[in-house]
């Protein structure tokens, strides 16, 4: 019996070894381990063995069975692996074929630039607020220390609706509205559309955007204004960016300044982009004029503050090197998709 078992075992193992497919493997399982299989029948013939040898022989049979099962399983895994490999080989694709992209839209470059600015200011504790685009003359001019017939009104060619209502020429009126409504400390930026009667060309548009900033608190200084704008310029145009403050005049700030940043194209050495100067004019700013504070109900003896205004299109055009402002309002998707 022992010999028979040994022969069977060897036969099974060699058949398993030779098996070329899962079906064959199954046949082998049935032939040896099935109900009528050969090992099973050896087990059935246990009774022909002397009772005292039965446990030992039974153990032998079971060992043979386990071993065959193990080998079957092992072979099965090998065969399956091979099959899968073949299948995958057949499934090889050309990964260099074009991608299938979902159609995604793009933000307007003005919006991208604006959100960038908003992100920086919100991080510095500024609230983003808005004001009306059609505005009272009072907020757009008078409350900003630009009385009727002030020459500054001519510099900003204004679209009028009535004598007292106009299309705002700047976002500065939002300053006044905020000061009227809130008590200091105030830290806001106010982005929005503004209008001036300029004919459309590569550098002018009758409608464009500004971002106004206003900080009012006790002990706000011109040095704070410098620090704040230097920080913004770095965030916006790169850590290497330097700023230059030049005296200027705005009726609603005193002292006033215009701010240049080092040309981000050449880093300040001078190039065609900055017309050789190494600097690019970027915004106007100053310490809020005491008259403006007073008119808005804030005591200039107790509080001081600074304000600044920057053209959004100017930032967008500079940042993305767009050479014609008209592109911003044509909305050609070939333009928009680049942002």
């Amino acid at each position, binding site marked *: 019996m022992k010999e028979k078992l040994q022969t069977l075992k060897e036969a099974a193992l060699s058949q398993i070894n030779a098996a070329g497919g899962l079906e064959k493997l199954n046949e082998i399982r049935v032939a040896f381990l099935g109900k009528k299989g050969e090992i099973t029948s050896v087990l059935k013939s246990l009774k022909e063995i002397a009772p005292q040898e039965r446990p030992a022989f039974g153990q032998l049979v079971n060992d043979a069975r386990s071993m065959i099962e193990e080998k079957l399983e092992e072979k099965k895994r090998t065969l399956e692996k091979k099959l899968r490999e073949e299948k995958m080989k057949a499934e090889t694709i050309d990964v260099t074929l074009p991608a299938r992209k979902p*159609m995604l*839209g793009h*933000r*307007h470059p003005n*919006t991208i630039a604006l*959100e960038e600015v*908003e992100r920086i200011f*919100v991080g510095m*504790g*500024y*609230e*983003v*607020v*808005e004001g009306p*685009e*059609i*505005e009272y003359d009072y907020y757009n001019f008078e409350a900003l220390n630009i009385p009727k*017939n002030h020459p500054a009104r*001519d510099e900003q060619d204004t*679209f*009028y*609706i*009535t004598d007292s*209502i106009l*299309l705002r020429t700047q976002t500065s009126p939002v300053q006044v509205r905020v000061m009227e409504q809130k008590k200091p*400390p105030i830290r806001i930026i106010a982005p929005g559309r503004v*209008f001036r*009667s300029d*004919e459309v060309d590569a550098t002018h548009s*009758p*409608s464009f955007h500004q971002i106004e900033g206003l900080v009012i*608190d006790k002990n*706000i*200084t*011109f*040095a*704070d204004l*410098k*620090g*704040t704008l*230097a920080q913004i310029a770095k965030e916006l145009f790169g850590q290497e960016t330097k700023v*230059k403050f*030049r*005296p*200027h*005049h705005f009726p609603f700030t*005193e*002292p*006033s300044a215009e701010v240049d940043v080092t040309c981000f194209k050449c880093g300040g050495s001078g190039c065609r982009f900055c017309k050789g100067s190494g600097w690019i004019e970027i915004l106007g700013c100053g*310490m809020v004029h005491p*008259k403006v504070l007073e008119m808005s109900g804030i005591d200039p003896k107790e509080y*001081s503050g600074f304000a600044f205004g920057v053209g959004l299109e100017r930032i967008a055009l500079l940042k993305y090197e767009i050479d014609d402002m008209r592109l911003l*309002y*044509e*909305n*050609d*998707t*070939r333009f*928009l*998709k680049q942002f």
Partner: protein
Amino acid sequence: MNTPLSWIRAYVPDLDCNAQEYMDAMTLTGTKVEGYERLDADLDQIIVGRINKIEKHPDADKLVICQVQIDEEGTSVQIVTGAPNVKEGDVVPVVLDGGRVAGGHDGEKVSGGVKIKKGKLRGVESNGMLCSIEELGSSKELYPDAPENGIYIFSDNPTYQGLKLGSSAISALGLDDIVFEYEITSNRVDCFGVLGIAREAAATFKKDFIPPVIKEIGNSENVSDYISAEIKDPNLCSRYVARVVKNIKLAPSPTWMQRRLAANGIRPINNIVDITNYVMEEYSQPMHAYDLDQIEGRKIIVRRSNEGEQFQTLDGQMRTLDSSILMICDAQKPIGIAGIMGGENSKITDDVKTLLFEAACFDGTNIRLSGKKLGMRTDAQAKFEKGLDPNTAMEAMNRACQLIEELNAGEVVGGAVDIYPNRREKTRVKFDYTHTNRLLGTDISKEEMISYFKKIDLEYDEATNEVIVPTWRQDIACQADLDEEVARFYGYDKIPVTLPSGEAMTGRLSFKLRLESMARDLAQQFGFSEAQTYSFESPKVFDKLLLEPNDPLRQTIVISNPLGEDYSIMRTLPLNGMLSSLATNYNRRNKDVRLYELANIYLPKEDSTKLPDERMQFILGMYGKGDFYDLKGVVEEFLEKIGIKKPLTYQPNTNRNYFHPGRRAEIYYEQESIGYLGEIHPEVLDRYEIGEKTYIAVLDMPKVTELANFEIKYMGIAKFPAVTRDISMLVKKEILAGQIEEVIRKQGGKHMESYHLFDIYEGEQIQQGYKSMAYSICFRAKDKTLEEKEITAAMNKILKGLSELGIELRQ
């Protein structure tokens, strides 16, 4: 404003800086220099030479051979020229071999100049070139002593007597100068004159400022025997100064004056005109000269014009005036438009004998408005508009008279007419140097601050702690103005750099802005790119969009001074901008275009003194891939995203005529319209020249914002199985899916979880006027497995409701 450096140096003699240093330093103290031009940028090796001998060229009729002496020692070079105007003995500008000139004698400048090399002209050696004023980069206009056509000849101008041979012709002609272009801010009226800028330059470079010394001159006669003056409207004319000059000798002004004017780009005319221009440039005080013999009644009256009066200005134009325009008149008639232009009837002619000089101060605003009304823009007007200092008028007048005498242009009559009802006095401003340091964040000593003030003629009164402000600095009125003076001379660049102290604050976007940002994100996920269009448009847009004549949206905010009709009204509908942008894309053959915009419409209020209702509109537009239902999907995804949970309803009965009548809907949330969408009417598409079906959806953001809600509560994932029932129906065509769904929602009971339309069909096998629709309805309970009878009961209720709509189940 342009000035040559030489003119500034005339008052700041110690100024020693190069052009770039000047530009940078002046800009940093607030006199912004936009740029500069070296008049001799393209000139090189041009000296004074004398033609000692001229011979005919053997092989060319139009050329001559000149022997030109180029130094005092007698060195001579041979130069061939074709110029018609030279003769032996002429002293001329000569460019030597290897030198450069600015351009051709036709006045055409060549960038970088033209290099001159020796060579042969028709076989004869030539070692340079004799120069015309055009070749030196200027013109006969600015150098009236230059010949009409040909070489500039120094020896024809007595001023140049004694000019050394071999010396620089560039300096002799005053071309070794640099002209600066300034951007002067409107508050610095004083800097519209050379003297004002020179004062700033002296302060900037810490040099002495030496203005011209003005002496009051005049003969023993009295001006009042010649003329008197009267101001009828002192609000518009704060001062009127007049003097008389007799025995006028009209002649060209001297070369130095011509050169200075030329460098400023002003054409020299004759001594009288040049003096008025010179003084205007110097003091920023316009002057005018009248022919006294043309002034009737020996009287000047400054008054407003009569309404509709006609007047011929000295440029020959007839002007129609109105009563807001200020005139200079004699006893009988107007003789000039105040501050803008004199009259034809009193202008200086070649046979003028006696003239009246006027230096007045007119109201800037009035001059500006009058200029606008008349469509005129003169140099004088540009100065007056700034609002001049009346105290300058007398000084400028005396300066002019002094120049008359210096130039020997006439005899100045003694005394001046001076009507000055309200003298402007120096003002005093309280000064607190600690405030300056507090505001600037600096630590500058009081002494240093006061030293800055002194440099710009601001006196400090120690006793009262006041700064005394001269009348030409009308911009200094309060402490902050003094702070700025300190800041700019201390140097903006030296002020420290700090960040605001004080309590920390939370930055944030408003809820409205957050929602707009979400709208952008969502639109972009569906392939829509952001457009920006103008807020104003043409009133013709309404016809283009097929709006009814009485549509309330035709009531618009109208711009009273638009750029043209196309930009004359504020939009009440966001469609035109979108359709125009889509049309641009269609015209440029862009495929599958999807755009969105977030922008305001402006709805006027009944009370026109109130600001209009500005409503942010979220508009989506597309052509190409996708249809009505795709766009509807985007709208619903957005509203769901911002927390609008209840289903929307769509009402096809809308009067939005720009949409296809069978493909349009008003979007309702509960009982309120929050937007609309549809396919654009083919007629409208034709008008915008869009050749593809186009869909537009608009959401009214203020309403949407009210509904938005970002509160989310987790609902628990269903544990018990769902049961689905499908129904297939025969439905009359006019019944809307919305009606069926309303029945399902109302009758489905509390366990009805969801439903969806999975088939819709009309055509063969379906009777005319009907459609087949199939819905799948899903039931589920939170707490148990539903029993068959519960579902049947719910389904029966639904079917009953449907049958009330006349809907039959298909078998």
